[in-house]
């Protein structure tokens, strides 16, 4: 088995919110004990509802938020020991909102060339060549280089964002909902592009998305997050065809499928609202919404344990489902 490119060990990111003067300080456990790894060339899908900590996890991996606990190892070395620039050349990120993720006052060329210069590529010709090259790869024409972001459509902007992420030739790219802000008819273009680039450049992805269809389509492995924790993790086929956590099942059941009307049993559906991460329920975080809730769920926090080879779920009843 290949050495993991990225290894997270019991990673936790807690935020202090509020102030001592205004109602007291609370701890928000945005990410709470996540252990994961990503191998080279692999695509890990990360799904979960809004606020469950997906973006926070991504930013922690990027080194933008210091972890409260646990370790992040890139290429086998702890993130803390790596230089900022070195990390930048290993892992990059694609953002959700193509409108907010480009500096409106910079041309495409500057957006792409500046990082190269910062990383010591000073030869003008080389910079130019790499800019043109990457633009071609993401499907932009060379004359686009001197335009400003507002002159592009959403899909084109996302291409610029992808080009920017790839200009330093990273090994791992974190895609934080790369298509959810795009017009429906554009999404396929971007998803195809990402998959092509993956094969062509041997990239590893972490694909964060709400859209289970997309995750299923692109991922090799999938991790499901709920309130800061991984509740289930495994190969894509296992997760989608044989989910072992009631939350995963609820997620899948919530997807309207005109071909399979009412195919999912009402039992799979989750009830009620997602609790606040500030004040998560005790025991299994999912128990207030869980159709399988039992007393043990309230008192005990189920560990993430294997159910099959490479498939783990954090549910007291993981073996009874499915």
């Amino acid at each position, binding site marked *: 088995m290949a050495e993991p490119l990225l290894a997270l060990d019991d990673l936790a990111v807690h935020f202090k919110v509020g102030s001592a003067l205004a109602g007291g300080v609370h701890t928000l456990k945005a990410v709470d004990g996540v252990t994961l790894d990503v191998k080279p060339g692999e695509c890990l899908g990360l799904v979960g*509802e809004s606020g469950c900590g997906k973006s926070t996890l991504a930013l922690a991996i990027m080194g933008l938020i210091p972890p409260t606990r646990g370790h992040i190892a890139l290429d086998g070395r702890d993130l803390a020991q790596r230089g900022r620039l070195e990390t930048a050349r290993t892992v990059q990120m694609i953002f959700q909102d193509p409108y907010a993720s480009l500096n409106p006052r910079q041309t495409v060329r500057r957006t792409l060339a500046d990082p190269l210069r910062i990383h010591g590529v000073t030869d003008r010709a080389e910079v130019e060549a790499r800019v043109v090259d990457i633009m071609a790869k993401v499907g932009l024409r060379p004359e686009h280089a001197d335009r400003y972001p507002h002159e592009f459509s*959403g899909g084109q902007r996302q291409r610029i964002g992808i080009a920017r992420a790839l200009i330093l030739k990273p090994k791992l790219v974190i895609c934080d909902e790369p298509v959810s802000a795009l*017009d429906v*008819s*554009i999404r*396929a273009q971007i998803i195809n592009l990402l998959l092509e680039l993956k094969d062509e450049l041997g990239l590893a992805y972490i694909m964060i998305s*709400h859209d*289970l269809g997309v995750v299923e389509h692109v991922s090799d492995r999938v991790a499901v997050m709920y309130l800061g924790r991984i509740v289930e993790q495994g190969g894509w086929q296992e997760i989608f065809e044989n989910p072992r956590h009631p939350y995963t099942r609820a997620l899948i059941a919530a997807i*309207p499928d005109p071909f399979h009307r009412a195919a999912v049993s009402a039992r799979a559906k989750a009830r009620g*609202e997602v609790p606040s991460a500030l004040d998560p329920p005790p025991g299994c975080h999912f128990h207030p919404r869980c159709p399988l809730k039992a007393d043990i769920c309230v008192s005990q926090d189920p560990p993430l344990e294997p159910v099959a080879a490479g498939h783990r779920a954090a549910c007291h009843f993981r073996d009874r489902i499915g």
Partner: protein
Amino acid sequence: MTADSLLRVEDLRIALAGDRTIYNAVEEVSFEIRRGEAFGLVGESGCGKSITALAVMGLLKRPLSLGGGKILLDGEEIQNASAARMRMLRGSRIGMIFQEPMTALNPLSPVGRQIAEMFVLHQNAGWSEAMDRAEEALRQVRVPSPGRRVKDYPHQLSGGMRQRVMIAIALACSPELLIADEPTTALDVTVQAEIIDLMAELCAAKGTAILMISHDLGLVANMCKRVAVMYAGRIVEAQPAEAIFAKPQHPYTQGLVDSLPRLGERSRRGQQRLREIAGVVPSIQAYPAGCRFNPRCPRASDVCLTTAPAITPLPAANSIEALVRCHHHG
């Protein structure tokens, strides 16, 4: 026109006053909703779904205005109805739910009061009676402990709860038609499913027809009996829900259905390259001549560049009308 037609929109045109010219943000839009029926309107962002709904409500504001066409509610032409008449219809006979539950409620007013207003406005109820009925309405939308919740302010409720309150407001006076403009896009997926179910259930119980607006074809097809697809201000296809997924006629609809990875697709067919729809959605100011989909259409021919396609009726399945607007449909 069918006998049990509730809302009929004929050749609706909505004008958008630009800097110098007037654009047609929506044109040649016709559809019909029958009593108790769920009708879906799907389309990408900016194609004119919301303003169509607002036109029906008589709530268009500058720079938008009604450019032409007829809107008939229960046979009554309301496109030129007086302001007072429209106020009577709004709320009591047509209810509406908006996309953003965060901002659609007045943050400074208890939710109970905001529901109760409906009874005061339309049923001459006194405030205390109205508040009691508001509590009842909250119970109907399955808000836990409604007695306490009536006094809560919107910020004390979660997104799903707020949307439930919106539903309670819209359905308070048992309208004949509920217009739901992307009621769940701002919600979590699991919550979304619950809200949709609730809406469908309540409407069925009250016999309220629904005009469901969304950009999610799957969602609409799942919930509605009939679906119309809009593109760039025009309806390009309308079919029964199953048919539009199984046998889409318009190249745009076909593109939409095929381009999106659907759950279970990979297991069935393996990881295939998605079908792309080339190009981008045009902006109002730059709608192409002829068929508006022509720059992106794989089947486009010369006629598509010059002539806007007329409506072609499709063979009716289940006695529901179906139509497509394409020179090369099928």
